[in-house]
């Protein structure tokens, strides 16, 4: 029997993988994908509890998150492209313009 605990464990695992990817990887594309993992981990939680509680609002929220993630991916990829054209790199260590 699959309980909400399983879903939450899966979700937590995905979330930790995503966070680790964001913090540790140097390629910005990979970081970008890790962010998607984090978002999807949240989606799993939302859908699991929607099912458990028999309440459609959770699913609505999940779809909303997917839509926002798509928009975010479009904007983010655009920024990355523009950056790449200027710097010819996608290494995040090179991106230190906000420094003092």
């Amino acid at each position: 029997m699959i309980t909400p605990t399983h879903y939450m464990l899966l979700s937590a695992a995905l979330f930790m993988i995503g966070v680790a990817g964001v913090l540790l990887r140097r390629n910005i594309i990979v970081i970008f994908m890790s962010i998607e993992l984090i978002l999807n981990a949240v989606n799993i939680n939302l859908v699991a509890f929607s099912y458990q509680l028999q309440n459609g609002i959770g699913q609505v929220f999940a779809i909303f998150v997917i839509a926002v993630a798509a928009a975010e991916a479009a904007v983010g990829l655009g920024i990355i492209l523009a950056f790449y054209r200027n710097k010819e790199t996608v290494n995040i260590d090179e991106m230190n313009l906000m420094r003092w």
Partner: protein
Amino acid sequence: MDLIWLIPILPGIGAAINGLVGIRSFNRQTSGLVACAAMAAALGLSIYAFAELLGLPADARDHVVDLGYWIPPIPLQTAQGIGSFEVPWAFRLDPLSGMMILVVTGIGFLIHIYSTAYMLDEPRGGYARFFCYLNLFCFFMLILVLGSTFLTMFVGWEGVGLCSYLLIGYWYEKKSASDAGKKAFLVNRIGDWGFILGVFLVFYTFGSLDFRVVANAAASMPVEAQFGVISLICLLLFIGATGKSAQIPLYVWLPDAMEGPTPVSALIHAATMVTAGVYMVGRNAVLFGHAPIVAQVVMIVGALTAFMAATIGLVQYDIKRVLAYSTVSQLGYMFLAMGVGAYATAHGWPHIGLAAFAAGAFHLMTHAFFKALLFLGSGSVIHAMAGEQDMRRMGDLRRYMPVTYMTMMIGTLAIAGIFPLAGFFSKDEILFRAFLTNKMIWGLGVMTALMTAFYMFRLMSMTFLGKYRGAAWEHTTPAASHAAAAHGVPHPADAHAHGQANKAQHDVSHGPAHDHGSAQDAAHGHGHGPWHGPHESPQAMTLPLMVLAVGAIVAGFVSIPPALGGGAVLEHFLEPSFTAQEVGLAASEGAAAPAAEAVAATSPAEAAHEEPHISHAAELGLMAFSVMIALIGIVAAYRLYVLSPQTADGLKERYAGAHNLLYNKYYVDELYDATFVAGTKKSSVGLWGFDRRVVDGAVNGSGWLTVFLSWVSSLIDRYVVDGAVNLVGRTSEESSFVFRRVQTGLVQNYALLMLAGVCVFVSIYLLVR
């Protein structure tokens, strides 16, 4: 007689016309005519007023015309309580001022006529300016003479001082002339200082400035045996007189005044200005008669001036300078007479006193005639010699200018005191009274008379007699000039030629050279070609000479002394002017003047004296003696300067020391330069130093203090205020080195930190809960 106020006004109008309009737009004839007409009108009016005065009885010959207030009454503190200080514009005609206006307008008129010809070399504007000044001079002199109060007199007194400055410095482009003008003005100011102080004291003492009031008040006071307030007044007034009338010690300006044009010298020396001091003493005869100490001072100063100036005159070579010193000397005579008069009056000898005062005024009048004559004659000579004034470069001019020679000879004989010319009578009157009063003074007077005769005849000998020693002249045609030189006659064609040939060599000249090319200048027929030798002057110059010569002959006859069978008319006519009103001559004839009584009261010993008196025979003897003295002088001069000039040179070399002393005028100018002038300069340098060090120092010190304080304040600003601001800035800057390390710019770092933060907060939440 009520129109006497017009007498000064007329020349004033003439001066105004010439000064305001003439300088710009009149030609020479017009400005000369205006000036002469003004003087002629004044002369006519003076004669008319004088005739009216003569028509009055002797004790009523005193007329005052009051034209209203000049200074309305102001209450002022005086010695006798609160007095009313008021000065009217009042003119007074009495015998003394009557005689004076005749002299001023008469001689002045002749000098005006003479100037019209003498000044023709001047440019048109200068000509009008000259006549403007001449008229102004007469205007102020007439105010001085006619004024009936001390202050009105002071107006004229200052005015003639101003005009003398203007006229002496007439050729103001020439440094020596403008210097001489300034010297005259400054020396006169010293005298004016005494005069105005005297006037203040008169008001303080008597509470009035009117001559008659003061004389009456003084007459009722006792004669001052000690030096009192009247003596002080008289001494101050006399200081004024020494300045104006060129007496020791203030005579130095008069010889320098020769820098002016010659008619000016004549006007200053004869008719106006220098007679003012004598006139003023005579006007205040009553005051001086109450101050025997000052009377002695006046007498001694007069005698010494006469003597000293005559000695200087003995050796001068400038023709005008000789005459200048002779003027100083003759003025000394007048003061001698005034002093003798005052002294005798104070000692209770009213007859001698009044007669001596009158003799002084009489000499003033005769001197005006022969001194004007001599000056105008010397002007004529200078004119003929094209500006030459040095007598060593003249000689034998008798041939070329007979009229000038004859008239000047008359003037010389008159000043020498040869019977029966004018100078004889007046000088003898003075010497006679001096003989009666003080033999020492008389002795000085006689020696002066000897020297006067000598130096005047020396002047005549060097100028008109002997051999011609002057410059050669250019001849129009060789033949004619040869004839002229050979026969010694003036060339007929150049009677009016005024050469400028010698101009450059003589700084003291007859006028700056001007080139007149215009048709208008040519119209008056005044040639300006090269100098054609000495020549007789035009008629406008010789005519006044002749008139004055007649005056110099007959002027003495108005007062023939009783010893010669005359009535001393002028002296008796003048005498009332020298007494206070209530104390007419009639009163003093009776018993004795109050002055005499006062003396009797104070010093009985004096009162015991009879008036000194000598017989007519002795008086005649004195006269013969002085004529003889004069003749000795003349003969000596003739022998030394005509018959054997080498003797004169020999004497000069033998007594070189004395000669140099006299030639350099006793070094008085140098002495004054070394003491007063240098002293003034030194003290002004001292004051300048004070100004620079103390006054400027204070200013600079306060400036420096301000600079110092602001420097201090700037230090505070820089280090305290700015320091605080900079400290804040520096602190943040320094601390930022540490804290900015946080900003790596790496997003992952930020995210890691955020995660750590979340972990920390969650841990806290879990632990603390």
